[in-house]
């Protein structure tokens, strides 16, 4: 089957406007939010139903092309970059709320549903979908499932895998199958657990059964301001050790707060080195008590000042500032690269010291804003050279130093952004050959031909840094 044949047959499945084949239509799908790599797909198809996804998979297989599923393209590890070309299956048209069961507190949604849109739809019912990644205003539930996304409020509610009960998927041969169910602990293998976080390498998700949680009666948001990052990190351990688990416990450093203030006027202090953003929810009787305890701990741990969000607007503004932190760093340098690593909570002060040391060693500014309560760090180097510059090697060196430090302290090389192509060469830092071989066996079962999002997650021996600005010619 040649390209024109394939286009014609795909059009018959999804309709003419939804088979993209012109250079300008394709080039915008060569990247996601990882800016250091890109590759143009051969075709992009936007199906509207499960049956269409299945038909598209079968046709792509027949044509012998790889298949890369894509949501909103907000991923930061390059998971949606079609490195081997092939067909990108963009699921952005599949945005329906298929079912809302208020009694069972579940919703069945299509993968293209935007995370924040789902929560907005649930407001009248007093419910919400808990995982709230920084990208939630744009990222899709399907993409969240692929990367097992987290977010500030995952400290209390768990990450995506804790909030997804079942999935409808299209397998590598086009078969439509259901895994999991509508309640926790479906009988048989926990295939939902296997699929969540598989980054599109096992199957294409076409429906997601999500767990919904009730909004708490009361919420209080506190900003505890510190002069030293070290001290702020120690306060995090002290809060958790006290037995109070806040809904969210975040750290922002001074660089980030000033950048966010500049673009969003978010109301963060301008002169502090760090601040904890803490949120507590619960009954209106219990929240003040909890907050008082947390405030006491923060003060005892050397907070310079405590600032409580007095109004819903102030709270919204602080959270908007936190969620837009990465974007705001665009103000600091021409490029920024958000890393995603984890360290045990008890080692936070130490890992932060090593992050800052690494920044000094490579002479690159690093901003920090992260899910401190989870020990999930996002050191973000910002710099003024392009990714085609020889200086870019310093960014890679810095990132590797930070990852190595995390592994040494008993942490991991990724928290919530996935491995994609960004971190695949480092998988061996975490796992033995035997561990990786076991994972590959699972991949073999789901996708023996290796056509679903090929070359992601596992080491390839190829360099990650593949962009050369302006080098390739128009197609």
């Amino acid at each position, binding site marked *: 089957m040649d390209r024109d044949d394939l286009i014609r047959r795909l059009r018959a499945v999804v309709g003419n406007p939804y088979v993209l084949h012109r250079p300008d239509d394709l080039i915008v799908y060569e990247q996601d939010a990882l800016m250091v790599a890109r590759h143009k797909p051969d075709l992009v198809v936007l199906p509207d139903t499960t049956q269409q996804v299945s038909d598209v998979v079968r046709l792509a297989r027949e044509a012998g092309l790889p298949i890369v599923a894509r949501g*909103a393209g907000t991923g930061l590890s390059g998971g949606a970059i079609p490195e081997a070309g092939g067909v990108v299956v963009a699921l*952005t048209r599949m945005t329906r709320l298929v079912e809302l069961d208020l009694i069972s507190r579940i919703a069945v949604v299509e993968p293209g549903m935007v995370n924040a*849109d789902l929560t907005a739809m649930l407001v009248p019912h007093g419910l919400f979908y808990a995982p709230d990644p920084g*990208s939630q205003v*744009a990222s899709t539930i399907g993409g969240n499932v692929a990367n097992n996304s987290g977010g500030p409020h995952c400290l209390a509610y768990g990450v995506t895998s804790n909030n997804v009960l079942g999935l409808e998927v299209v397998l590598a041969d086009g078969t439509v199958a259901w895994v999991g169910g509508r309640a926790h602990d479906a009988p048989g293998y926990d295939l939902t657990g296997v699929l969540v976080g598989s980054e599109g390498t096992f199957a294409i998700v076409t429906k997601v059964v999500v767990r919904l949680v009730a909004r708490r009666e009361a919420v209080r948001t506190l900003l505890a301001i510190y002069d030293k990052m070290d001290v702020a990190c120690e306060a995090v351990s002290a809060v958790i050790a006290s037995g109070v688990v806040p809904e969210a416990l975040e750290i922002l450093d001074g660089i980030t707060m000033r950048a966010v203030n500049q673009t*969003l006027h978010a109301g963060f202090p301008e002169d502090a080195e760090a601040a904890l953003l803490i949120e507590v929810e619960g009954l209106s009787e219990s929240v003040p008590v909890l907050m008082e305890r947390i405030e006491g701990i923060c003060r005892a741990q050397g907070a310079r000042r405590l600032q409580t969000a007095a109004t819903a607007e102030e709270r919204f503004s602080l959270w908007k500032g936190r969620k*837009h932190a990465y974007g705001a760093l*665009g*103000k600091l340098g021409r*490029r920024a690269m958000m890393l995603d690593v984890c360290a045990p909570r008890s080692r936070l002060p130490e890992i932060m010291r090593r992050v800052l040391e690494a920044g000094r060693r490579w002479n690159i500014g690093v901003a920090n804003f992260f899910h401190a309560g989870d020990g999930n760090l996002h050191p973000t180097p910002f710099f003024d050279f392009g990714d085609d510059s020889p200086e870019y090697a310093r960014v890679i060196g810095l990132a590797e130093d930070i990852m190595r430090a995390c592994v040494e302290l008993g942490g991991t090389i990724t928290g919530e952004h996935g491995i994609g192509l960004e971190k695949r060469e480092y998988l061996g830092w975490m796992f033995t050959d035997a561990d990786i071989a076991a994972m590959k066996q699972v991949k073999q079962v789901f996708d023996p031909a290796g056509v679903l999002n090929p070359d992601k997650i596992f080491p390839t021996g190829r360099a990650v840094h593949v962009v050369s600005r302006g080098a390739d010619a128009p197609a």
Partner: protein
Amino acid sequence: MATLAPVHDPRARGGRGLMPAIPELEACIHCGLCLNHCPTYRVTHLEAESPRGRIYLVDAAAQGRLDLTKSVADHLYLCLMCRACETACPSGVQYGRIAEAAREVLGPPGPPLTRMMVRLALRHLMPHPRRLRAMAALMRLFQRSGLARLAARVLPGTLGRRLALMPVASPRFYAPEAEVLPAIGERRARVAFLTGCAMSMFFSEINEATVRVLRRNGCEVVIPSGQICCGALNVHNGEADSARAMARRNIDAFPEDVDAVVVNAAGCGAAMKEYGHLLARDPLYGSRAQHFASRVRDVSEFLAALGMRTQSRPLSQAVTYQDPCHLAHGQRVRAEPRALLAAVGVQLTEMAGSDRCCGSAGIYNVLQPEMAETLLREKMEAIRETRAGVVVAPNPGCMIQLRYGAQRFGVPVQIVHLLDLLDEAGA
């Protein structure tokens, strides 16, 4: 500056390096947080119809990695230029400037005949108030004679409907009784007033109301006779050169010794606030343009800062407010109109997505009727849900579009300008 490369000229195909490097491109870090805020992305779900996608196209063209084909131009012209993405963008990317620069290279939108007509109108009609006035008179004649109704029946689809529901041109083009109108009572400020082309043609009574409210609030109002259209349509439709000429004319026409240049059309205000950028490389006008731009104020912004004298006469009807894109996103003015409405006793019932584009967008609703109609339908549903009887939409394009929408989708609302209500309340 790059010369106008005709997109549809076969010679342009395969031509490379036409897109200049645009410094604003650097700020985009490709995070994608703009996507879901973009009206055309929300409808199409296509990356190339999103702000990030369009920026990527312009960037790829500037790098010489992409030819400026007709298809690229189509993506850039399906954009409404509503700039909702700028409000959403955490990196402060100035999308409007990127798109305007790109459109300058691409030239006006549409197939060859449309391009030619748009270019003709932008170059030879918009900068000439007398020709605009003649057109307004002809239009009124056409509308009154019944010819319009006939044409509407004959013409197919949206075009016919639009023609039938076009607002009737005002009986007279706005013409103030004098060039300087004194303040009523104690003088608190001296302002110059932009009368605007669409405002003068279709809404001369709102211009009169604006001047009345300004004067009653102690403003001496200067209405320079040499002023012309602000040039917004030209900038947005790839005619930046003629826009620059128009900006220079206005800078010359407006007096320097005023506290503010007051504008009652959101689109014009946003464009005039960009005069400094538009003429940045003009050796003669560069710094004057910056000074001019720094004094431009939307009338709501100006009155709120001045402190409006109110004689509240509460309105009985429920009122909702449509944020004009070039006020909310283009000028970041959201609180002031609401505060002024509250000051005259109006309690707003907010609609869902009040800062989402209604689909008017200059000449967009004529050139992209399908997308404009889709957005308008959503907008009218949001208005219907508020059960409001009055929609305040302080921009001529929005008012024309919403009036058409109210009839087209049968929503019983009156569409007014903020200054209509303020004037009525005696402010």
